[in-house]
């Protein structure tokens, strides 16, 4: 694998991973924006409206036809947050030239199509097409409302909102349904123009082409990008290391299984974060099948079907999610916290520790076999201006000592507890 990074236009960087082991190419073009309630819904809606039509493919049918012609190239709108940086853009994956009849050149054509979608959208009277804005606005609002169908996701989203109320991190990367419905073609168009002029853009490519070829195609496709050279607002995340008294929240819905979600702040370790140690700690506590949460809360005590922890390293928080029998709230909560206490006291067996490290290393090395995971990893790195590879992080992780992992556990503070239960019991 040959990895390179280069600023190819003002505030536009290309990370390129050359390898011929995949059968496809993968291209991500992402606008990195400050997460903020005011703009989040507009940011999230924008790529969906752009996907509806562009200059040479003004409607959905011709857009789909163009992608079918490119051997089923997939170009999708993507929205996600890395800490308090909202990342919106397009992600494309497409067959490698080597495997299509006549070795047709697909890469240049896909990049050109992605460029056109982003820079030359279908317009009406100088604004983004009002029919498309209206149609996508409704659908986007529905998508946000539908988060409730996935109870685990819903519980974590609610926990985030309540725990980080007053912080940008509380805002979901999709935005809010009510804000979405207030977006007009004029407001979205104005916002869109501002992004084109000043937002930082991260481009990622992984496939068999070398960086030069990708850069040349991008230079061509993005030549109309209006880069004024003006300084943009820097993007970043406000990491809070302090917590107050633990807050408890309970909500009810018509469900059979309760969802218990805990939010922690990683605390002082975030002042100079040792990512490898944080990952290893997470694997010991709840991030792997050899973790304390998995083996004790699930396997030994059968308190739940799942219990796991997840780190959001950009924000310095950790979430524990668990599906439990509603009657077992007290027991499950106590056990989840007790397992953290054991980590704090260094009550970690040699085997547990080694297993956790192996799991982190295996996961990071496996990432090298997935274009999508690499794209997401490097986007995270770019947001924080870090430059190590998954392999380097794997090497660092295998060097972590038990003391370093315990230090992370000692720094972690419980902030909020959220419980989603059913209607009857709350009545």
């Amino acid at each position: 694998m040959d990895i390179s990074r280069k600023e190819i236009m003002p505030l536009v960087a290309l990370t390129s991973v050359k390898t011929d082991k995949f059968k496809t190419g993968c291209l991500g073009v992402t606008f990195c924006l400050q997460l903020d309630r005011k703009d989040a819904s507009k940011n999230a809606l924008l790529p969906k409206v752009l996907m509806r039509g562009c200059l040479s493919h003004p409607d959905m049918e011709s857009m789909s036809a163009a992608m079918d012609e490119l051997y089923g190239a997939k170009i999708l709108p993507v929205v996600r947050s890395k800490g308090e940086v909202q990342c919106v853009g397009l992600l494309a994956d497409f067959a490698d030239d080597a495997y299509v009849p006549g070795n047709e050149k697909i890469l240049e054509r896909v990049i050109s199509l992605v460029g056109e979608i982003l820079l030359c959208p279908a317009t009406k009277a100088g604004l983004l097409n009002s029919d498309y804005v209206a149609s996508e606005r409704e659908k986007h609002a529905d998508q946000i409302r539908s988060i409730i169908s996935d109870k685990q996701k819903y519980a974590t989203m609610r926990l985030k909102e309540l725990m980080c109320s007053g912080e940008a991190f509380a805002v979901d990367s999709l935005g809010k349904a009510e804000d979405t419905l207030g977006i007009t073609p004029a407001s979205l168009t104005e916002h869109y123009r501002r992004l084109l002029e000043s937002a930082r853009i991260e481009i990622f490519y992984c496939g068999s082409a070398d960086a030069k070829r990708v850069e040349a195609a991008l230079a061509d496709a993005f030549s109309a990008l209006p880069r004024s050279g003006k300084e943009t607002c820097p993007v970043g995340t406000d990491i809070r290391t302090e917590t107050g008294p633990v807050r408890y929240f309970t909500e009810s819905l018509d469900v059979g299984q309760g969802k218990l979600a805990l939010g922690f702040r990683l605390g002082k370790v975030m002042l100079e974060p040792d990512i490898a140690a944080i990952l290893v700690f997470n694997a010991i506590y709840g991030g792997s099948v050899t973790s304390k949460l998995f083996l004790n809360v699930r396997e030994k005590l059968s308190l739940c079907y799942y219990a796991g922890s997840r780190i959001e390293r950009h924000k310095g928080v950790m979430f524990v999610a668990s599906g439990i029998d509603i009657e077992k709230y007290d027991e499950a909560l106590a056990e989840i916290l007790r397992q953290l206490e054991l980590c704090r006291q260094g009550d970690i067996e040699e085997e547990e520790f080694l297993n956790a490290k192996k799991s982190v290393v295996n996961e990071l090395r496996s990432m090298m076999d997935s274009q999508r995971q690499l794209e997401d990893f490097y986007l995270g790195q770019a947001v924080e201006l870090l430059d190590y590879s998954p392999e380097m992080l794997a090497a660092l992780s295998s060097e972590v000592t038990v003391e370093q992992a315990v230090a992370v556990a000692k720094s972690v503070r419980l902030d909020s507890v959220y419980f989603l239960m059913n209607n009857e019991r709350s009545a």
Partner: protein
Amino acid sequence: MELRKYERLNEQVNICSLPNGLVIYVIPKKGYFKSAAVFAANYGGSDMRFRLAGEWHDTPAGVAHFLEHKMFDMEGGGNALTLLSANGASPNAFTSSGMTAYHFESTENFEDNLRILLKFVSRPYFTEDSVAKEQGIIGQEIRMTEDDPEFAVYQNLMKSLYAENPIRVSVAGTVESIAKITAKTLYYCHEAFYNPSNMVLCVAGDIDPARVEAIAREILPPEKRETAERDYGQKEKPRPASGLSDVKMEVAVPLFMAGVKLDVPDRGQERQRRELLMDFAMNLLLGKSSPLYARLYADGLINNTFSGGSTFFPGGAAAVFGGESRDPSAVCAAVIEEAASFASNSLRTELFQRLKKAALGDEIRSFNSLYGMCVRQAAGHFAGFDPFGSMEQIAGFTMEDVSEAVLGSLRPENLAISIVRPVKGES
């Protein structure tokens, strides 16, 4: 050892059969950090009634899935999940209606991991205590699934379509049905279905096929055993058993799935051809590039969750479509009307050609995932066809084949509809 080559994709599969009846597929992949192994039994949720040693047995719903959970317990108190994980692998398992598959991916110690996999799956160890405890964990899993509207909409559709086929019943069973499972049930079903001639081993990675064969010979029993004969009920008529399921759950937007039964062969190349043809036909009728999709999308009747295709399971198959919609009945009516007037006009022929190109791209893409290839190979093996030969099948489709598939199946009198509506608000 037999060698299957796929020249255009630069891929190959090594096949070998052992005297105990096990067939091994090894897919060499260079340049990948990880390797994947899938060890699967031709035994799933649908295999509830079977004959062994001349006697018919009726087992409770959910045994195959229960067995999958319990196989990880090893004699002497060890757990295979922990053992594999400690050895640097990411292990897991799944049970579908027709298959139970145990798998891992690892970036190191592949041979040791393979030994562990083959060992724990072939050597059952259950106690009444461990079975009782698992009833708690699986009970939670069942509750969780029952809160999932996507699961409900699918399961209710199958219940509406079929009168007898076991696809009516959830793979995991119910809290009541799993209460009837004992250690004896598990031992018996393991005996009936986990013999090498009813299993398959698929491996992908930078692996020597001869080593895989040697390890399989070393670990697995050398003799061939009798495999149970299964009963999926009588062949069913095209009319649905009940026709409509309409329930309320915690969702924001109504969700629906509609479908018709298909009469397909149980095994072989013709089964594969029918599956590919139906998927292709549904894509042409209502896929993202179709005029119908564009119309329904613009009218606000569907959003991007809408899709259609086929689902194949033991003893049957169905063509289905669905997604979120404010007016499921209107969508169903539009699909039926479009199907009835499905004709090979010039527009349709153009789309037909384009979708063949897109299908080639999808096929190319599917060769990226080692695990995905192993699972596909396992499913193909059990159903008696070469899963990687689908390109030739699709290339051979004519517009007449496709019209016949649509006109012959999507008749209004055969359609069953399943709807999940929000608990509150719009009815």
